[in-house]
Protein backbone atom coordinates (compact mmCIF):
# COMPACT_ATOMS: atom_id res chain seq x y z
CA UNK A 1 0.00 0.00 0.00
CA UNK A 2 1.59 3.22 -1.23
CA UNK A 3 -0.22 5.43 1.31
CA UNK A 4 1.16 3.49 4.26
CA UNK A 5 4.72 4.02 3.11
CA UNK A 6 4.07 7.76 2.78
CA UNK A 7 2.52 7.92 6.26
CA UNK A 8 5.45 6.08 7.84
CA UNK A 9 7.82 8.36 5.99
CA UNK A 10 6.01 11.42 7.39
CA UNK A 11 6.27 10.01 10.91
CA UNK A 12 10.00 9.52 10.44
CA UNK A 13 10.41 13.01 9.00
CA UNK A 14 8.64 14.44 12.07
CA UNK A 15 10.91 12.36 14.30
CA UNK A 16 13.99 13.58 12.42
CA UNK A 17 12.88 17.20 12.80
CA UNK A 18 12.35 16.71 16.54
CA UNK A 19 15.83 15.16 16.77
CA UNK A 20 17.45 18.11 15.04
CA UNK A 21 15.75 20.40 17.56
CA UNK A 22 16.99 18.26 20.49
CA UNK A 23 13.41 17.35 21.32
CA UNK A 24 13.99 13.70 22.12
CA UNK A 25 10.65 13.19 23.83
CA UNK A 26 8.71 14.02 20.68
CA UNK A 27 11.27 12.21 18.59
CA UNK A 28 10.39 9.04 20.53
CA UNK A 29 6.65 9.64 20.17
CA UNK A 30 6.89 10.04 16.38
CA UNK A 31 9.07 6.93 16.16
CA UNK A 32 6.42 4.97 18.08
CA UNK A 33 3.77 6.28 15.73
CA UNK A 34 5.70 5.16 12.71
CA UNK A 35 5.86 1.61 14.10
CA UNK A 36 2.16 1.73 15.03
CA UNK A 37 1.37 2.71 11.45
CA UNK A 38 3.76 0.17 9.95
CA UNK A 39 1.92 -2.77 11.55
CA UNK A 40 -1.22 -1.79 9.64
CA UNK A 41 0.43 -3.29 6.57
CA UNK A 42 2.47 -6.34 5.72
CA UNK A 43 5.82 -4.82 4.79
CA UNK A 44 8.04 -5.99 7.65
CA UNK A 45 10.93 -3.69 6.94
CA UNK A 46 8.71 -0.61 7.50
CA UNK A 47 9.01 -1.01 11.26
CA UNK A 48 12.77 -0.54 11.15
CA UNK A 49 13.12 3.27 10.74
CA UNK A 50 10.84 3.85 13.75
CA UNK A 51 12.64 1.23 15.80
CA UNK A 52 16.01 2.82 15.10
CA UNK A 53 14.79 6.37 15.74
CA UNK A 54 13.38 5.26 19.08
CA UNK A 55 16.79 3.84 20.04
CA UNK A 56 18.48 7.05 18.99
CA UNK A 57 16.03 9.12 21.04
CA UNK A 58 16.94 7.09 24.12
CA UNK A 59 20.70 7.51 23.56
CA UNK A 60 20.56 11.27 23.00
CA UNK A 61 17.96 11.79 25.72
CA UNK A 62 20.37 10.13 28.15
CA UNK A 63 23.33 12.17 26.89
CA UNK A 64 21.40 15.40 27.24
CA UNK A 65 20.16 14.57 30.70
CA UNK A 66 23.58 13.55 31.98
CA UNK A 67 24.66 15.89 34.71
CA UNK A 68 27.47 15.92 37.19
CA UNK A 69 31.15 16.61 37.15
CA UNK A 70 31.70 15.36 33.65
CA UNK A 71 29.87 16.66 30.62
CA UNK A 72 29.41 14.49 27.52
CA UNK A 73 30.61 15.60 24.07
CA UNK A 74 27.03 16.20 23.01
CA UNK A 75 27.66 18.37 19.93
CA UNK A 76 30.18 16.00 18.34
CA UNK A 77 27.90 13.03 18.98
CA UNK A 78 24.93 14.96 17.62
CA UNK A 79 26.84 15.71 14.42
CA UNK A 80 27.14 11.97 13.84
CA UNK A 81 23.48 11.49 14.74
CA UNK A 82 22.40 14.14 12.23
CA UNK A 83 24.47 12.48 9.54
CA UNK A 84 22.72 9.18 10.29
CA UNK A 85 19.17 10.57 10.23
CA UNK A 86 19.90 12.38 6.97
CA UNK A 87 21.02 9.07 5.52
CA UNK A 88 17.88 7.39 6.86
CA UNK A 89 15.68 10.06 5.26
CA UNK A 90 17.52 9.61 1.98
CA UNK A 91 17.06 5.83 2.07
CA UNK A 92 13.37 6.28 2.80
CA UNK A 93 12.88 8.35 -0.34
CA UNK A 94 12.48 5.03 -2.18
CA UNK A 95 9.86 2.48 -1.20
CA UNK A 96 12.10 -0.46 -2.08
CA UNK A 97 14.88 0.57 0.30
CA UNK A 98 17.38 -2.07 1.34
CA UNK A 99 16.65 -3.51 4.77
CA UNK A 100 20.26 -4.63 5.18
CA UNK A 101 21.53 -1.11 4.48
CA UNK A 102 19.31 0.25 7.22
CA UNK A 103 20.67 -2.29 9.70
CA UNK A 104 24.22 -1.66 8.61
CA UNK A 105 23.93 2.13 9.05
CA UNK A 106 22.31 1.72 12.45
CA UNK A 107 25.06 -0.61 13.58
CA UNK A 108 27.78 1.75 12.35
CA UNK A 109 26.25 4.60 14.28
CA UNK A 110 26.03 2.50 17.44
CA UNK A 111 29.71 1.64 17.16
CA UNK A 112 30.62 5.32 16.69
CA UNK A 113 28.39 6.56 19.50
CA UNK A 114 29.51 4.10 22.14
CA UNK A 115 32.64 6.17 22.90
CA UNK A 116 30.46 9.20 23.53
CA UNK A 117 28.17 7.36 25.91
CA UNK A 118 31.07 6.13 28.03
CA UNK A 119 32.45 8.14 30.89
CA UNK A 120 36.15 9.08 30.78
CA UNK A 121 37.31 6.25 33.06
CA UNK A 122 35.65 3.69 30.81
CA UNK A 123 36.82 5.35 27.63
CA UNK A 124 40.44 5.49 28.78
CA UNK A 125 40.46 1.92 30.01
CA UNK A 126 38.34 -0.36 27.84
CA UNK A 127 39.56 -1.64 24.52
CA UNK A 128 37.38 -2.71 21.62
CA UNK A 129 37.00 -6.48 21.75
CA UNK A 130 34.22 -7.79 19.52
CA UNK A 131 35.16 -11.41 20.17
CA UNK A 132 34.54 -10.94 23.87
CA UNK A 133 31.22 -9.24 23.10
CA UNK A 134 30.09 -12.19 20.97
CA UNK A 135 31.09 -14.64 23.68
CA UNK A 136 29.29 -12.63 26.36
CA UNK A 137 26.13 -12.18 24.26
CA UNK A 138 25.93 -15.88 23.50
CA UNK A 139 26.47 -16.69 27.15
CA UNK A 140 23.77 -14.23 28.26
CA UNK A 141 21.21 -15.45 25.75
CA UNK A 142 21.91 -19.05 26.74
CA UNK A 143 21.51 -17.99 30.35
CA UNK A 144 18.17 -16.41 29.48
CA UNK A 145 17.10 -19.68 27.88
CA UNK A 146 18.23 -21.65 30.91
CA UNK A 147 16.48 -19.33 33.35
CA UNK A 148 13.37 -18.62 31.26
CA UNK A 149 11.10 -20.09 33.99
CA UNK A 150 11.99 -16.97 36.00
CA UNK A 151 9.82 -15.04 33.54
CA UNK A 152 6.82 -16.72 35.16
CA UNK A 153 7.60 -14.99 38.44
CA UNK A 154 5.62 -11.72 38.49
CA UNK A 155 8.42 -9.87 40.30
CA UNK A 156 11.26 -10.88 37.98
CA UNK A 157 13.44 -8.43 36.05
CA UNK A 158 15.31 -11.08 34.07
CA UNK A 159 15.01 -9.48 30.63
CA UNK A 160 15.97 -6.07 31.98
CA UNK A 161 18.97 -7.63 33.71
CA UNK A 162 20.08 -9.34 30.50
CA UNK A 163 19.60 -6.07 28.58
CA UNK A 164 21.58 -4.17 31.17
CA UNK A 165 24.53 -6.54 30.76
CA UNK A 166 24.35 -6.50 26.97
CA UNK A 167 24.19 -2.71 26.83
CA UNK A 168 27.15 -2.40 29.16
CA UNK A 169 29.27 -4.90 27.24
CA UNK A 170 28.50 -3.38 23.85
CA UNK A 171 29.27 0.09 25.20
CA UNK A 172 32.61 -0.96 26.63
CA UNK A 173 33.83 -3.39 23.95
CA UNK A 174 31.82 -2.72 20.79
CA UNK A 175 30.38 -5.48 18.65
CA UNK A 176 29.53 -6.77 15.21
CA UNK A 177 26.35 -6.28 13.20
CA UNK A 178 24.86 -9.51 14.49
CA UNK A 179 25.40 -8.34 18.07
CA UNK A 180 23.49 -5.13 17.31
CA UNK A 181 20.67 -7.30 15.91
CA UNK A 182 20.64 -9.56 18.99
CA UNK A 183 20.61 -6.58 21.32
CA UNK A 184 17.72 -5.02 19.38
CA UNK A 185 15.72 -8.24 19.54
CA UNK A 186 16.17 -8.58 23.30
CA UNK A 187 15.09 -4.95 23.69
CA UNK A 188 11.98 -5.55 21.61
CA UNK A 189 11.26 -8.75 23.56
CA UNK A 190 11.51 -6.84 26.84
CA UNK A 191 8.99 -4.24 25.63
CA UNK A 192 6.60 -6.96 24.51
CA UNK A 193 7.00 -8.94 27.73
CA UNK A 194 6.20 -5.85 29.83
CA UNK A 195 2.73 -5.85 28.24
CA UNK A 196 2.37 -9.64 28.59
CA UNK A 197 2.72 -9.23 32.35
CA UNK A 198 -0.24 -6.88 32.32
CA UNK A 199 -2.32 -8.83 29.83
CA UNK A 200 -1.70 -12.23 31.35
CA UNK A 201 -1.57 -11.30 35.02
CA UNK A 202 -4.12 -13.04 37.21
CA UNK A 203 -6.13 -11.43 40.00
CA UNK A 204 -4.03 -13.22 42.65
CA UNK A 205 -0.90 -11.47 41.36
CA UNK A 206 0.56 -14.46 39.54
CA UNK A 207 1.07 -14.75 35.77
CA UNK A 208 -0.74 -17.06 33.39
CA UNK A 209 2.10 -19.52 32.96
CA UNK A 210 0.69 -21.25 29.88
CA UNK A 211 0.30 -17.98 28.01
CA UNK A 212 3.78 -16.68 28.89
CA UNK A 213 5.32 -20.03 28.01
CA UNK A 214 3.54 -20.30 24.66
CA UNK A 215 4.08 -16.66 23.66
CA UNK A 216 7.47 -15.60 25.05
CA UNK A 217 9.51 -18.80 25.17
CA UNK A 218 9.50 -19.42 21.39
CA UNK A 219 10.98 -15.95 20.86
CA UNK A 220 13.82 -16.75 23.27
CA UNK A 221 14.48 -19.93 21.32
CA UNK A 222 14.58 -18.02 18.04
CA UNK A 223 16.97 -15.38 19.39
CA UNK A 224 19.20 -18.11 20.82
CA UNK A 225 19.35 -19.85 17.45
CA UNK A 226 20.37 -16.64 15.71
CA UNK A 227 24.09 -17.01 16.37
CA UNK A 228 24.26 -20.64 15.28
CA UNK A 229 22.12 -20.20 12.15
CA UNK A 230 23.68 -20.11 8.69
CA UNK A 231 24.63 -16.57 7.69
CA UNK A 232 22.17 -16.48 4.80
CA UNK A 233 19.18 -17.11 7.11
CA UNK A 234 20.17 -14.71 9.88
CA UNK A 235 18.65 -11.66 8.19
CA UNK A 236 15.27 -13.31 7.82
CA UNK A 237 15.33 -14.57 11.44
CA UNK A 238 15.99 -11.02 12.64
CA UNK A 239 13.34 -9.53 10.35
CA UNK A 240 10.62 -12.08 11.26
CA UNK A 241 11.36 -11.97 14.99
CA UNK A 242 11.48 -8.19 15.22
CA UNK A 243 8.27 -7.86 13.23
CA UNK A 244 6.46 -10.29 15.55
CA UNK A 245 7.68 -8.52 18.68
CA UNK A 246 7.01 -4.98 17.49
CA UNK A 247 3.58 -5.93 16.11
CA UNK A 248 2.66 -7.60 19.40
CA UNK A 249 3.96 -4.62 21.37
CA UNK A 250 1.99 -2.05 19.33
CA UNK A 251 -1.18 -4.18 19.46
CA UNK A 252 -0.90 -4.37 23.22
CA UNK A 253 -0.53 -0.60 23.26
CA UNK A 254 -3.96 -0.35 21.64
CA UNK A 255 -5.39 -2.50 24.44
CA UNK A 256 -3.53 -1.17 27.46
CA UNK A 257 -1.94 2.08 26.28
CA UNK A 258 1.06 3.56 28.06
CA UNK A 259 2.54 1.38 30.79
CA UNK A 260 3.17 2.95 34.17
CA UNK A 261 6.66 4.42 34.12
CA UNK A 262 9.01 4.95 37.01
CA UNK A 263 8.33 8.44 38.21
CA UNK A 264 8.98 10.85 40.98
CA UNK A 265 5.80 11.79 42.71
CA UNK A 266 5.49 15.29 44.04
CA UNK A 267 3.69 15.96 47.25
CA UNK A 268 1.97 19.25 46.88
CA UNK A 269 2.70 21.65 49.64
CA UNK A 270 5.24 23.80 51.36
CA UNK A 271 7.18 22.26 54.20
CA UNK A 272 7.12 24.10 57.52
CA UNK A 273 10.38 24.59 59.41
CA UNK A 274 10.94 22.18 62.31
CA UNK A 275 10.71 25.06 64.80
CA UNK A 276 7.24 26.02 63.55
CA UNK A 277 6.11 22.41 63.70
CA UNK A 278 7.32 22.14 67.28
CA UNK A 279 5.46 25.31 68.28
CA UNK A 280 2.24 24.02 66.72
CA UNK A 281 2.62 20.72 68.57
CA UNK A 282 3.15 22.59 71.86
CA UNK A 283 0.11 24.83 71.30
CA UNK A 284 -2.09 21.87 70.39
CA UNK A 285 -0.98 19.94 73.46
CA UNK A 286 -1.62 22.97 75.69
CA UNK A 287 -5.04 23.57 74.12
CA UNK A 288 -5.99 19.92 74.52
CA UNK A 289 -4.85 19.91 78.15
CA UNK A 290 -6.90 23.04 78.72
CA UNK A 291 -9.88 21.41 76.97
CA UNK A 292 -9.62 18.30 79.11
CA UNK A 293 -9.24 20.48 82.18
CA UNK A 294 -12.46 22.32 81.34
CA UNK A 295 -14.28 19.05 80.76
CA UNK A 296 -13.00 17.58 84.03
CA UNK A 297 -14.16 20.68 85.92
CA UNK A 298 -17.58 20.38 84.28
CA UNK A 299 -17.84 16.69 85.24
CA UNK A 300 -16.74 17.40 88.81
CA UNK A 301 -19.38 20.11 89.11
Amino acid sequence: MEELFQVVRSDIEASVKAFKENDFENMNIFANRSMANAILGEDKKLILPGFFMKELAAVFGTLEARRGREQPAFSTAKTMGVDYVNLLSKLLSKKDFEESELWHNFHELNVKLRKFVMITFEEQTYQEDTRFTRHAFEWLINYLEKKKQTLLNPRNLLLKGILNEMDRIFRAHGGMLLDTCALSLIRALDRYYDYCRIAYGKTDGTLDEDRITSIIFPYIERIRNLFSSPTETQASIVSETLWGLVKGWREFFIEYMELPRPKIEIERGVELPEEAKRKIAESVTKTLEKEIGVRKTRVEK
Partner: protein
Amino acid sequence: MMSSLLEEIVAEVKLNNPQASAEEVSEAMVRFIEQDILPAALRKMRTPEPISPLQRWREKEMLKRVKKKRREAARIRMEESRQLLLEFEYVKHKLVRIHMDTSSLAPDLFHRDIADSLRRRTISVGTIPTTENLFLKKDGIPSIEPEPVRNKREELSKLMPYTPVPRKEVKEPQIFLIDEIVQEKITSDPIFAENLGVIERVARTYATVSPFKMDFFVYFRTDVEIPDWEKTILSVQVSELDFDKKMKLWDEFDAVIRKEIQQRIKIASRLEKERLEEMNRTLFTRIELA
Protein backbone atom coordinates in the same frame (compact mmCIF):
# COMPACT_ATOMS: atom_id res chain seq x y z
CA MET B 1 -14.75 33.75 77.43
CA MET B 2 -13.93 33.93 73.72
CA SER B 3 -11.75 31.07 72.51
CA SER B 4 -8.90 31.52 70.03
CA LEU B 5 -9.02 30.21 66.46
CA LEU B 6 -6.50 27.52 67.36
CA GLU B 7 -8.66 26.36 70.27
CA GLU B 8 -11.69 26.22 68.03
CA ILE B 9 -9.88 24.16 65.41
CA VAL B 10 -8.43 21.79 67.99
CA ALA B 11 -11.83 21.37 69.62
CA GLU B 12 -13.36 20.61 66.22
CA VAL B 13 -10.67 18.05 65.39
CA LYS B 14 -10.99 16.42 68.80
CA LEU B 15 -14.76 16.28 68.51
CA ASN B 16 -14.54 14.40 65.21
CA ASN B 17 -11.60 12.23 66.30
CA PRO B 18 -12.12 11.54 70.02
CA GLN B 19 -9.44 8.81 70.08
CA ALA B 20 -6.71 10.97 68.51
CA SER B 21 -3.68 11.79 70.62
CA ALA B 22 -2.23 15.30 70.91
CA GLU B 23 0.63 14.21 68.63
CA GLU B 24 -1.77 12.98 65.94
CA VAL B 25 -3.82 16.17 66.11
CA SER B 26 -0.73 18.37 65.73
CA GLU B 27 0.60 16.23 62.87
CA ALA B 28 -2.74 16.53 61.08
CA MET B 29 -2.68 20.28 61.57
CA VAL B 30 0.86 20.62 60.25
CA ARG B 31 -0.13 18.59 57.19
CA PHE B 32 -3.17 20.79 56.68
CA ILE B 33 -1.07 23.96 56.90
CA GLU B 34 1.64 22.57 54.60
CA GLN B 35 -0.66 21.14 51.97
CA ASP B 36 -3.52 23.60 51.87
CA ILE B 37 -3.12 26.81 53.82
CA LEU B 38 0.45 27.78 52.85
CA PRO B 39 0.20 26.87 49.15
CA ALA B 40 -3.10 28.76 48.90
CA ALA B 41 -1.60 31.81 50.63
CA LEU B 42 1.49 31.76 48.41
CA ARG B 43 -0.56 31.39 45.28
CA LYS B 44 -2.62 34.42 46.24
CA MET B 45 0.35 36.63 47.08
CA ARG B 46 1.07 39.25 44.47
CA THR B 47 4.53 40.34 43.50
CA PRO B 48 5.37 43.91 42.49
CA GLU B 49 5.08 44.79 38.82
CA PRO B 50 8.38 44.28 37.00
CA ILE B 51 10.21 47.47 36.15
CA SER B 52 10.36 48.45 32.51
CA PRO B 53 13.64 48.21 30.55
CA LEU B 54 13.63 52.03 30.34
CA GLN B 55 13.33 52.35 34.11
CA ARG B 56 16.09 49.78 34.55
CA TRP B 57 18.31 51.73 32.19
CA ARG B 58 17.60 54.96 34.11
CA GLU B 59 18.50 53.33 37.39
CA LYS B 60 21.70 52.01 35.88
CA GLU B 61 22.62 55.46 34.53
CA MET B 62 21.88 57.11 37.88
CA LEU B 63 24.08 54.60 39.63
CA LYS B 64 27.00 55.64 37.47
CA ARG B 65 27.04 58.94 39.32
CA VAL B 66 27.52 57.43 42.75
CA LYS B 67 30.71 56.03 44.26
CA LYS B 68 31.92 52.62 43.17
CA LYS B 69 31.30 50.97 46.56
CA ARG B 70 27.73 52.25 46.77
CA ARG B 71 27.14 51.44 43.12
CA GLU B 72 28.27 47.85 43.63
CA ALA B 73 26.12 47.50 46.75
CA ALA B 74 23.09 48.85 44.86
CA ARG B 75 23.75 46.56 41.93
CA ILE B 76 23.93 43.50 44.21
CA ARG B 77 20.74 44.61 46.00
CA MET B 78 18.89 45.02 42.71
CA GLU B 79 20.05 41.67 41.43
CA GLU B 80 19.12 39.95 44.66
CA SER B 81 15.69 41.48 44.65
CA ARG B 82 15.13 40.49 41.03
CA GLN B 83 16.36 36.99 41.77
CA LEU B 84 14.07 36.73 44.77
CA LEU B 85 11.09 37.79 42.68
CA LEU B 86 12.03 35.35 39.99
CA GLU B 87 12.30 32.50 42.47
CA PHE B 88 9.06 33.48 44.13
CA GLU B 89 7.27 33.49 40.76
CA TYR B 90 8.79 30.12 40.06
CA VAL B 91 7.56 28.68 43.37
CA LYS B 92 4.10 30.03 42.61
CA HIS B 93 4.24 28.58 39.13
CA LYS B 94 5.24 25.19 40.49
CA LEU B 95 2.53 25.29 43.12
CA VAL B 96 -0.10 26.09 40.53
CA ARG B 97 1.09 23.25 38.33
CA ILE B 98 1.34 20.83 41.20
CA HIS B 99 -2.09 21.91 42.33
CA MET B 100 -3.46 21.11 38.89
CA ASP B 101 -1.46 18.01 38.15
CA THR B 102 0.56 15.82 40.45
CA SER B 103 2.03 13.70 37.67
CA SER B 104 5.78 13.60 37.27
CA LEU B 105 7.27 17.02 36.80
CA ALA B 106 10.92 17.15 35.94
CA PRO B 107 12.67 20.09 37.56
CA ASP B 108 13.70 22.70 35.05
CA LEU B 109 17.38 22.89 34.31
CA PHE B 110 17.77 26.48 35.40
CA HIS B 111 15.93 26.11 38.65
CA ARG B 112 17.10 22.75 39.87
CA ASP B 113 17.90 24.10 43.33
CA ILE B 114 14.45 25.53 43.97
CA ALA B 115 12.69 22.57 42.45
CA ASP B 116 14.72 20.24 44.61
CA SER B 117 13.75 22.06 47.75
CA LEU B 118 10.11 21.71 46.77
CA ARG B 119 10.32 18.10 45.78
CA ARG B 120 10.03 15.33 48.29
CA ARG B 121 11.04 12.00 46.97
CA THR B 122 8.19 9.90 48.22
CA ILE B 123 8.25 7.15 45.57
CA SER B 124 11.02 6.75 43.08
CA VAL B 125 11.19 3.05 42.44
CA GLY B 126 10.92 1.23 39.16
CA THR B 127 7.30 0.23 38.75
CA ILE B 128 6.71 -3.41 38.20
CA PRO B 129 3.37 -3.94 36.48
CA THR B 130 0.85 -5.40 38.88
CA THR B 131 -2.72 -6.57 38.61
CA GLU B 132 -3.70 -3.34 40.37
CA ASN B 133 -2.48 -1.40 37.36
CA LEU B 134 -4.47 -3.70 35.15
CA PHE B 135 -7.71 -3.10 37.03
CA LEU B 136 -7.04 0.58 37.14
CA LYS B 137 -6.85 0.64 33.38
CA LYS B 138 -9.83 -1.68 32.90
CA ASP B 139 -11.89 0.48 35.20
CA GLY B 140 -11.60 3.25 32.73
CA ILE B 141 -8.69 5.35 33.90
CA PRO B 142 -6.19 4.53 31.24
CA SER B 143 -3.07 6.52 30.74
CA ILE B 144 -2.78 7.88 27.24
CA GLU B 145 -0.07 8.05 24.66
CA PRO B 146 1.70 11.28 25.38
CA GLU B 147 0.90 13.93 22.85
CA PRO B 148 3.82 15.92 21.49
CA VAL B 149 5.03 18.05 24.32
CA ARG B 150 5.45 21.80 24.27
CA ASN B 151 8.75 23.41 24.96
CA LYS B 152 8.93 23.66 28.76
CA ARG B 153 11.29 26.61 28.72
CA GLU B 154 9.02 28.50 26.37
CA GLU B 155 6.03 27.73 28.55
CA LEU B 156 7.87 28.88 31.65
CA SER B 157 9.08 32.08 30.06
CA LYS B 158 5.48 33.08 29.34
CA LEU B 159 4.68 32.70 32.99
CA MET B 160 7.70 34.53 34.28
CA PRO B 161 7.84 38.24 33.68
CA TYR B 162 11.35 38.59 35.10
CA THR B 163 14.60 38.17 33.25
CA PRO B 164 16.70 35.46 34.89
CA VAL B 165 19.82 36.85 36.53
CA PRO B 166 22.86 34.65 35.83
CA ARG B 167 24.20 33.03 38.97
CA LYS B 168 26.80 30.38 39.36
CA GLU B 169 24.37 27.59 40.21
CA VAL B 170 21.64 28.57 37.74
CA LYS B 171 23.95 29.22 34.82
CA GLU B 172 22.61 28.54 31.35
CA PRO B 173 24.11 25.52 29.63
CA GLN B 174 27.00 26.36 27.38
CA ILE B 175 26.62 26.37 23.60
CA PHE B 176 29.08 24.26 21.64
CA LEU B 177 28.79 25.05 17.95
CA ILE B 178 30.61 23.15 15.23
CA ASP B 179 31.23 24.66 11.83
CA GLU B 180 29.80 22.82 8.82
CA ILE B 181 33.21 21.84 7.40
CA VAL B 182 34.26 20.46 10.77
CA GLN B 183 30.97 18.53 10.88
CA GLU B 184 31.85 16.93 7.54
CA LYS B 185 35.21 15.89 8.93
CA ILE B 186 33.51 14.39 12.02
CA THR B 187 31.25 12.20 9.88
CA SER B 188 34.04 11.08 7.56
CA ASP B 189 36.90 10.63 10.04
CA PRO B 190 36.01 8.60 13.17
CA ILE B 191 39.37 9.21 14.88
CA PHE B 192 39.05 12.96 14.42
CA ALA B 193 35.49 12.70 15.78
CA GLU B 194 36.72 10.81 18.81
CA ASN B 195 39.51 13.31 19.50
CA LEU B 196 37.22 16.28 19.07
CA GLY B 197 34.79 14.53 21.39
CA VAL B 198 37.50 14.44 24.06
CA ILE B 199 38.13 18.17 23.64
CA GLU B 200 34.43 18.98 23.74
CA ARG B 201 34.01 16.94 26.89
CA VAL B 202 36.89 18.72 28.64
CA ALA B 203 35.73 22.16 27.46
CA ARG B 204 32.15 21.57 28.59
CA THR B 205 33.24 20.17 31.94
CA TYR B 206 35.55 23.16 32.45
CA ALA B 207 32.70 25.53 31.60
CA THR B 208 30.35 23.76 33.96
CA VAL B 209 32.56 24.34 36.99
CA SER B 210 33.57 27.83 35.88
CA PRO B 211 31.58 30.70 37.41
CA PHE B 212 31.20 32.33 33.97
CA LYS B 213 29.03 31.41 31.06
CA MET B 214 31.28 30.06 28.32
CA ASP B 215 30.23 29.28 24.75
CA PHE B 216 32.34 27.49 22.17
CA PHE B 217 32.73 27.47 18.42
CA VAL B 218 34.94 25.05 16.48
CA TYR B 219 36.09 25.82 12.96
CA PHE B 220 39.01 25.25 10.60
CA ARG B 221 41.44 27.91 9.42
CA THR B 222 44.15 27.53 6.84
CA ASP B 223 47.48 29.13 7.59
CA VAL B 224 48.22 32.01 5.22
CA GLU B 225 51.87 31.10 4.87
CA ILE B 226 51.49 27.32 4.87
CA PRO B 227 48.20 26.62 3.06
CA ASP B 228 48.44 22.87 3.74
CA TRP B 229 48.41 23.47 7.45
CA GLU B 230 44.82 23.33 8.57
CA LYS B 231 44.28 24.64 12.05
CA THR B 232 41.38 23.61 14.27
CA ILE B 233 40.27 26.67 16.20
CA LEU B 234 38.36 26.30 19.45
CA SER B 235 36.98 29.75 20.00
CA VAL B 236 35.62 30.61 23.45
CA GLN B 237 33.14 33.36 24.18
CA VAL B 238 33.06 34.51 27.80
CA SER B 239 30.76 37.21 28.97
CA GLU B 240 31.21 39.68 31.81
CA LEU B 241 34.98 39.55 32.12
CA ASP B 242 37.53 42.27 31.68
CA PHE B 243 40.58 41.93 29.42
CA ASP B 244 43.03 40.77 32.10
CA LYS B 245 40.70 38.14 33.48
CA LYS B 246 39.97 36.85 29.99
CA MET B 247 43.70 36.50 29.32
CA LYS B 248 44.15 34.60 32.59
CA LEU B 249 41.21 32.35 31.77
CA TRP B 250 42.64 31.70 28.30
CA ASP B 251 45.94 30.46 29.78
CA GLU B 252 44.18 28.22 32.24
CA PHE B 253 41.69 26.82 29.74
CA ASP B 254 44.38 26.08 27.15
CA ALA B 255 46.48 24.31 29.78
CA VAL B 256 43.54 22.11 30.79
CA ILE B 257 42.90 21.08 27.18
CA ARG B 258 46.59 20.36 26.49
CA LYS B 259 46.94 18.38 29.70
CA GLU B 260 44.04 16.13 28.71
CA ILE B 261 45.51 15.55 25.23
CA GLN B 262 48.92 14.73 26.76
CA GLN B 263 47.32 12.27 29.14
CA ARG B 264 45.57 10.58 26.22
CA ILE B 265 48.81 10.39 24.25
CA LYS B 266 50.41 8.44 27.11
CA ILE B 267 47.86 5.63 26.95
CA ALA B 268 47.03 5.69 23.23
CA SER B 269 47.93 3.08 20.63
CA ARG B 270 50.53 4.02 17.99
CA LEU B 271 47.99 5.20 15.41
CA GLU B 272 45.88 7.04 17.97
CA LYS B 273 49.03 8.62 19.39
CA GLU B 274 49.99 10.04 16.00
CA ARG B 275 46.54 11.48 15.49
CA LEU B 276 46.43 12.94 18.98
CA GLU B 277 49.82 14.57 18.50
CA GLU B 278 48.59 15.99 15.22
CA MET B 279 45.49 17.29 16.98
CA ASN B 280 47.66 18.89 19.66
CA ARG B 281 49.76 20.64 16.98
CA THR B 282 46.84 21.89 14.92
CA LEU B 283 44.49 22.85 17.72
CA PHE B 284 44.43 26.50 18.79
CA THR B 285 42.28 27.81 21.57
CA ARG B 286 41.17 31.40 21.31
CA ILE B 287 39.29 33.61 23.72
CA GLU B 288 37.14 36.29 22.14
CA LEU B 289 38.44 39.48 23.70
CA ALA B 290 36.01 41.92 22.12
